[in-house]
């Protein structure tokens, strides 16, 4: 007997809320769903011809910054008071980067404003030893960045962010890493993955995403 996906995801008799599952596999990013933005510099976004490659955003500007992101072009269907996102992400680089960052989660606008950017996510950046939780209201200066205690590396990690009306919990590898109650977003959200890199010499920084799921709770 064939079982429905619906019945596996939802308790009997309940009405499913908005959900999306993206597996980032195929010959091109699903541009019906996603919007790729290169904010500045030289970079690219493409499906990766690598085992577990997923979708890869690269920064390649030499002696300069490259910033890029994928999002839903401001179609915001996820609640800032009750939603969850899950992403499998890794950051790699071919040279030592002066500065780099990878983020993923839910965000109000498909822009490169993060401090005051109305978002929740995780963040890896060069000026931290550990991955951090990153979240912000829509006001500059109102953001949180508690350390997860998970040391940075170039491997895939599974991140899960759970947003309620009163807190934001970030789980990595099935273990709750942070729980914070301030600086939470104030409006509806869309999934996003972001990459930033400053390459002092020829080479690249990369953010790979192999899985993204979001749903309202």
């Amino acid at each position, binding site marked *: *007997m*064939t079982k*429905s*996906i*619906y019945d596996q995801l*939802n308790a*009997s*008799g*309940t*009405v*499913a*809320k*908005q*959900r*999306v*599952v993206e597996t980032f596999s195929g010959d091109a990013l*699903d541009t*019906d*769903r*996603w*919007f790729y933005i290169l904010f500045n510099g030289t970079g690219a976004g493409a499906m990766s011809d690598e085992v577990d490659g997923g979708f890869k955003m690269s920064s390649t500007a030499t002696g300069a910054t490259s910033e890029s992101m994928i999002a*839903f*072009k*401001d*179609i*915001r*269907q*996820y*609640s800032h008071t009750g939603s969850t996102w899950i992403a499998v992400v890794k950051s790699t680089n071919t040279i030592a980067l002066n500065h780099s960052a990878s983020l993923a989660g839910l965000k109000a606008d498909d822009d490169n404003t993060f401090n005051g950017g109305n978002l929740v996510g995780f963040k890896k950046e060069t000026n931290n030893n550990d991955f951090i939780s990153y979240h912000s209201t829509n006001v500059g200066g109102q953001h949180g960045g508690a350390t997860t205690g998970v040391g940075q590396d170039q491997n895939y990690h599974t991140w899960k962010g759970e947003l309620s009306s009163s807190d934001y919990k970030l789980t990595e590898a099935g273990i709750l890493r942070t729980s914070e109650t301030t600086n939470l977003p104030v409006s*509806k959200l869309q999934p996003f993955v972001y990459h930033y890199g400053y390459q002092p010499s020829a080479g690249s920084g990369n953010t790979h995403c192999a899985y993204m799921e*979001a749903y*309202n709770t």
Partner: protein
Amino acid sequence: MVYKQHFIEWFSGKSLPSYWTVFNYSGSNTFAMADEVDGGLKITTGTGGDNRGLIRFQNASSNAIRQYSNTASVCISVFKRVTGDTRTWSGFTSGTGDQAVNSGNNAAITDESSQTYKRAISSDGSALSGIVTTVPIDTSYHSAKVEMRSSDFQATIDGSLQVTKSTNLPSGDKVEPVFGNWNVASGAKVGHITYMECYNT
């Protein structure tokens, strides 16, 4: 057990996936992903009476793509009607999918503002008929399951079997999913869908 055809649509992202085809059976209707929490796909009709639009599968040669059995398949959707003077429906079709005409060849669950309860409706090319459920019409999301069986179809709402209907079943041996919205008076009328899953059983 060998896997059978199975399809799932989340209606989440910047635009409707291109494997759907939109149809305007009357008027100029708008099909857009809604920038709203739990918004899914939003169909807004044109303002004229009987303006109606729907989505289903059709290839570039205008051939319908019907991969689900008329006698052994399931369609589960989550949809809602928003406005008055509106009929919103979701399920399977072997024809045009249009609820306003017999050639729609639908087996679907409807929320119609002119009714008291949601209905299971079907059409076979020559007639269209409906059976009322016990679920009152409203403007909230509900799960709607249409199961095609050998000699009837069953309509289940929010996990509760409501209707088994054996008359005016869609013709032919294969069907495709359909979601539509119909303005039965005037003014732009709205329906949303956030989920669609179909599979052969």
